């Protein structure tokens, strides 16, 4: 017994936000994400309702009310699906299978240990049979936490490095990043889908109006609505996607810092990232929709550090860890 906490207290429990330069407490981050998730759900309903009204009004003012109801129901459905089903979906898309105590004893033990260190229930552990080293976490809260790692990752990392990657993923779970990111992904997806539906129906609506011989052609309000709609429908998806990627990149830094804090070993994570950086095998084939969930972007070459990159550049993440 002693009066001093054991080693590692020199690691910071707060990091500087790479975007705003403000200090973020790793412990308060969870609350921020929970608030943001609620807000996002609300924004999604309002936004889709508003867009729905514009679309309805542009096609036929009489239809506006109906389209709003459809859009809001659709938004609620998307939110609910993102909340409850995103983990099942992403696991099946990635081709993950449950890890067993016999076959993957090592991985299961490492995950249990890190979960104890993070103070969360042991996550469900999945394995993806793929030579490319990668991992992801899913689950709306720590009780439903799930992590999946590729067989390639287990092959190239030693125990400390694997612990570090698992800690990064558990950090995503503990911080409620998963809930927030899957809600955000659903919002962006809904906006994009709405754009496609609207563009198609407007073409259809235009044809219908011409057939009507202009007798029922809407007034000036309708034209304004159409113009506003076109601008919104072109800009909104782009903005939403750029926002989503910025949010995703920021959470990667935070998960790195939290993971380093959980293991008290930033060097382990830095070395793991170096091994991933130097990996020269074929990249993992995953759909665009789930790329942001992985430990490193599966398609490394694409959008390495542009506005639409889901992850910060690997070298930058390594440098930050080495500076801790």
């Amino acid at each position, binding site marked *: *017994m*002693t*009066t*001093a*906490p*054991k*080693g*590692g*207290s*020199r*690691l*910071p429990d707060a990091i500087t936000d790479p975007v705003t330069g403000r200090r973020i407490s790793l412990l308060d981050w969870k609350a921020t994400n929970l608030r943001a998730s609620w807000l996002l759900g609300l924004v999604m309903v309002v936004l889709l309702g508003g867009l729905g009204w514009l679309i309805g009004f542009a096609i036929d003012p009489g239809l506006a009310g109906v389209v709003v109801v459809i859009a809001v129901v659709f938004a609620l459905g998307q939110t609910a699906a993102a909340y409850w089903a995103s983990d099942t979906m992403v696991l099946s898309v990635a081709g993950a299978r449950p890890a067993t105590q016999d076959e993957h*004893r*090592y991985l299961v*033990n*490492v995950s*249990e*240990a*890190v979960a*104890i*260190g*993070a*103070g969360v229930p042991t996550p469900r552990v999945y394995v993806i049979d793929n030579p490319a080293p990668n991992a992801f976490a899913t689950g709306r809260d720590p009780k439903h936490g799930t992590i999946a790692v590729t067989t390639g990752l287990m092959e190239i990392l030693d125990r*400390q490095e694997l612990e570090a990657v698992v800690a990064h993923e558990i950090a995503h779970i503990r911080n409620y990043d998963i809930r927030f990111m899957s809600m955000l992904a659903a919002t962006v997806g809904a906006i994009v889908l709405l754009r496609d539906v609207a563009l198609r129906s407007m073409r259809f609506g235009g044809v219908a109006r011409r057939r009507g011989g202009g007798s029922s052609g809407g007034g000036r309000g309708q034209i304004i609505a159409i113009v506003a709609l076109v601008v919104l429908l072109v800009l909104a998806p782009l903005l939403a996607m750029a926002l989503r990627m910025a949010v995703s990149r920021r959470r990667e830094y935070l998960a790195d810092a939290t993971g380093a804090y959980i293991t*008290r*070993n*930033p*060097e382990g994570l830095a070395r793991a990232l170096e091994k991933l950086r130097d990996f020269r095998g074929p990249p993992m084939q995953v759909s665009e929709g789930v790329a942001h969930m992985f430990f490193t972007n599966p398609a490394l070459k694409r959008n390495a550090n542009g506005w639409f990159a889901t992850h910060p550049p690997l070298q930058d993440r390594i440098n930050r860890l*080495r*500076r*801790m």
Partner: protein
Amino acid sequence: MTTIIVLAILAALILFAINVYNRIITLENRYQNAWSQIDVQLKRRADLVPNLVETVKGYAAHEQEVFDNVGKARAAMAGAKNVDQWAEAANMMTAALGRLFAISEAYPELKANENFRVLQEELSSIENKIAYARQFYNDAVLQFNTVITTVPGVFFAGPMGKTKHVYLEVPEPDKELPTVSFGAATA
């Protein structure tokens, strides 16, 4: 009007007090849970040890001193009456098992034994879990101590009968992290 203001202030104060009270209780529960997590791992380790000793005896029966040390550590764990003795016994066991695994390096047949390999992985991962559980326990105690010694928690700790809790010391060889410097100067 004055009544309403007084009532509003009173309500705010009560809500604030409830908040602080709950925070202290939550943090106390957290370190107590962390403690039971350590206990769970120590029990799992104790359950595996006889099995391990039997397996090793089959190949290295004459390493009597090592088996004696493990036996002593087991007895100390069973007889521990307070936290200090308990922690000491747990550390003894860690050291004894460490030596046992060290001597096993000299017996290739033992190392090839499937049962031994599984036990070795299980026990070393339990050591790892104990280290993590201690770390989380100390984190939780640190948080608890901070809250009850700073404003506003310090005003509640006395009436609630809460005092600073002690940290768990980790013996040096226990945590086998690399001795990397993270740049102590900047930390």
